[in-house]
């Protein structure tokens, strides 16, 4: 019981501490790909500390909701990220929430973020919020259909069970899994506001979505939101790796050696995924906002097709 709790606590701390490093690594890799030196790996930590030290400039019209939202977003994202198995499955509290709940927790975070965007009463906030909910209205059903396909295969929506099933030899190569993986990657790109859906580095008002919503945030509030954004990227990478690359996962209570293997495997997977993300982002250009529905519509169709195949036959 105690060791289980310790693993759960360690996992919560690991995701929190690792998330800025992951972002730093992606930025570094992107910079190196275009032959720039790039900022140091620990730059995101420095940014967070600097933001914490700065004063908050609050817009005149901002209400209590605007000030509470950063904490809510952070809490919902952190809880969701802590429930995804990173290096060990069978966590003490993994039965608290299944994959559907994790998706919905991220939905809660987005709900409040969109509201906070509208709180100040500028056009940018409304613009960001309205585009964000449009993207979410397509990404969320796609994500749920992916959850359906996984649940149909593994017979569960519980992530630990899904990961254990995907690690077992009976899975094999399946068309539906391939479709789910592509759809999940597309959804992850959209959810994390990465290129080609949104540009995390842009500050041109008319092209941004995520940045437009948080335009009025500063200081410690912005730090919380940034940390939540980092956590979300880590969450999606952990999700992809625990479902589609389930090798080396510690299955709970098997001693320090297997835990060490789990941690090492997890770090390797994150590195590979981060490099892939950097290469992909460097290779493609951002698309127009109204191309995004086509992009996500394709993800939705792929996910639906994967689910339909499984409903027709379990062996596809």
């Amino acid at each position, binding site marked *: 019981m105690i060791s289980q709790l310790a693993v759960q606590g360690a996992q919560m701390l690991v995701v929190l501490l690792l998330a800025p490093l992951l972002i730093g690594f992606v930025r570094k890799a992107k910079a190196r790909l275009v032959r720039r030196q790039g900022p140091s790996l620990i730059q995101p930590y420095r940014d967070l500390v600097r933001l914490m030290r700065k004063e908050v400039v609050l817009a005149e019209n901002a209400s209590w909701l605007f000030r509470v939202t950063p904490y809510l977003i952070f809490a*919902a994202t952190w809880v969701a990220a802590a429930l995804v198995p990173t290096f060990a499955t069978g966590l003490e509290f993994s039965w608290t929430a299944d994959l559907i709940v994790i998706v*919905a927790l991220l939905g809660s975070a987005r709900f409040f973020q*969109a509201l906070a965007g509208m709180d100040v009463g500028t056009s940018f906030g409304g613009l960001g919020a*309205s585009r964000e909910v449009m993207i979410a209205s397509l990404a969320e059903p796609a994500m749920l259909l992916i959850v359906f396909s996984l649940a149909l295969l593994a017979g569960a929506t519980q992530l630990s069970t899904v990961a254990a099933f995907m690690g077992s030899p009976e899975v094999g190569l399946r068309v539906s899994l391939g479709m789910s993986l592509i759809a999940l990657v597309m959804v992850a790109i959209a959810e994390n506001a990465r290129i080609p859906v949104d540009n995390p580095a842009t500050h041109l008002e008319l092209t941004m979505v995520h940045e437009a919503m948080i335009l009025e945030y500063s200081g410690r509030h912005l730090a919380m939101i940034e940390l939540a954004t980092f956590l979300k990227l880590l969450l999606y990478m952990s999700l992809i790796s625990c479902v589609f690359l389930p090798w080396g996962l510690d299955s709970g209570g098997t001693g320090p050696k297997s835990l060490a293997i789990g941690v090492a495997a997890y770090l390797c997977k994150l590195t590979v995924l981060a490099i892939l993300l950097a290469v992909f982002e460097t290779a493609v250009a951002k698309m127009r906002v109204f191309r995004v529905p086509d992009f996500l519509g394709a993800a939705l169709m792929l996910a639906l097709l994967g689910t339909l195949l499984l409903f027709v036959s379990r062996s596809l």
Partner: protein
Amino acid sequence: MNSTVALLLCGPAAFLATAIMAAAASRLAAATRLVYGATLVISAVMLTTAAGHLAGNPGEVSATLPLGLPWTGARFRLDGLSAFFLVVVNLGGTITSLYGLGYGRHESQPHRVLPFYPAFLAGMNLVVLANDAFSFLLSWEFMSLASWALVMAHHRDEANRRAGYIYLVMASFGTMALLLAFGLLAGPAGTYAFDAMRTAHPGPFAAGAVLVLMLLGAGSKAGLVPLHAWLPLAHPAAPSHVSALMSGIMTKVAVYGFVRVVFDLLGEPAWWSGVAVLLIGGVTAVLGILHALMERDLKRLLAYSTIENIGVIFTSLGLALAFKAHGMPSAAALAFTAALFHVLNHSFFKSLLFFGAGAVLSATGERDMEKLGGLIHRLPVTSFVFLIGCVSISALPPFNGFASEWLVFQAILRSPELPQWGLKVIVPAVGGMLALSAALAAACFVKAFGITFLGRARSAAAERAHEVDRWSLAAMAVLAALCLLAGILPGFVIDSLSTVTLPLVGERMPVQMAQPWLSIVPIAESRSSYNGLLVFVFITISASLAAFFIHRFASHALRRGIAWGCGFPDAVPAAQYTAVSFAQPIRRVFGGFAFRSRETVDMPAPGALEPARLKVEMHDVAWETFYQPITGAIDFTTERLNHLQFLTIRRYLTLVFLYLIILLLVLALWP
């Protein structure tokens, strides 16, 4: 006669007595307080009686009164299903009366509301208690007429008159369908009592016809697409607390009618019944929420969102039917419990949201979101509870809307075990539609809350608004607390529903309250589980931790400044995003097939002084496809028949003579 039933029948009688008293005394100053106080007490007594019955589980009890048709009498019965719906109706009635104590004082014409309000409550209670077709239909019509009178309370408004007219036509249509359905159920023997119908199993054709007629009759009252046209007109037209009753409670009475006939009286369902209900439910959910997204009238937005939730409920009922037809009682129990749980949840948050809309209306006099904004500063308590309602209805954890939608998704995941191919293809598609409608609902309520309560005030009325009275705030706070409680303790609700599901689908969900940490586990823990309480606790702890950490270590400095406006000073509030512009991206994505919408931009030539114009053309497809041809045909025939009014006496005599000859011929030729 059983004492519980006697007590429950005293309730409607007391409501009717209150209605008569209100009609007599409605012009007195104290009438508002008296009427709502009386309905509050009566509903509370009914609520405790019904809840006691549901919890105590003493089976079913019935009573016959020497009323109604002389040779049958009026039969009433209380079983698990009616006890549950009595709880829904009277919980709504109690809290609405509490709200009415405060809100009713703003009513400009109380004598048009007060007599009909208790009558409406009496009608809904009697529908749920009725145990024969005659009492059921009579109560149903009484409920419809009482609510129609409430819709017409402010009849000087042209739009309200039109809403009332369409409502009346659709209500009559629905009752006609119900009458035919009961006629088929009664069979040639003409047995009106539900007990007799339950044992007489109709043939497959008659059973199919009854299902279709119930979808038309109960579905038109509940707001299934395409029979929903009256709902977004009539629900908002009534005073806000009555809108809450109509949207939150009366649609549930319609669901009760459907469940009573299809799950209880009809016996074993046909294999295709689940398919039909599933598809209609899914389409209703998506179209309802898309319409809601396009609305700029707050109350009408809420009415359209009711259509979406009815779609979710019917989808779940369709799943239960499909499982039941294929001999999977445990899955049917899961889907059926999910449907009933959503019935309860929707009654909570929809009443809460309509109360909030009523509070905004009484504080500003506006329903149009384009003229609101910034109310979070002026109505702090209302905006907080309205926010809880928005979070709940958007199916976000840890609130109650999520718990029931989660159960629906779990039920969908049981469907690969269904043997039938049609269902195998339809169920995942419907699951996708539900997921889509849930995501769109979140978008819709970001818009509803964001435009109404956030940002800057768009009109002088919104700028001058003041917080509403304490009665209204208390009613909304109770509902907000219920939304949270049902969300973090879903196991309690699921266990209370076991007495309802067991007789109707032959199975119940496993006991949930015995699970460690109050989780809910529909099938097995390795398969899926959800713990609303712990999710709530975790979010609270991590948010507090973050806040503590920030306040301990980070800078405390805070400065107010003007918002970033790209360097343009003093942007007017009209430059904010509006309800219509907020929905524009979604209109562009979904509008093409849902509304056949088209946007045209008139750009003046460079240098010209006239403004650029954006024109949006949208169609209500259901109205144009189903209703306009019918109204056109009726107009056409009445136009033709109109000549009959201006005939000479000779021609009338000829007509009568001809008619007589035809009748005689028919009689002569009849075998």
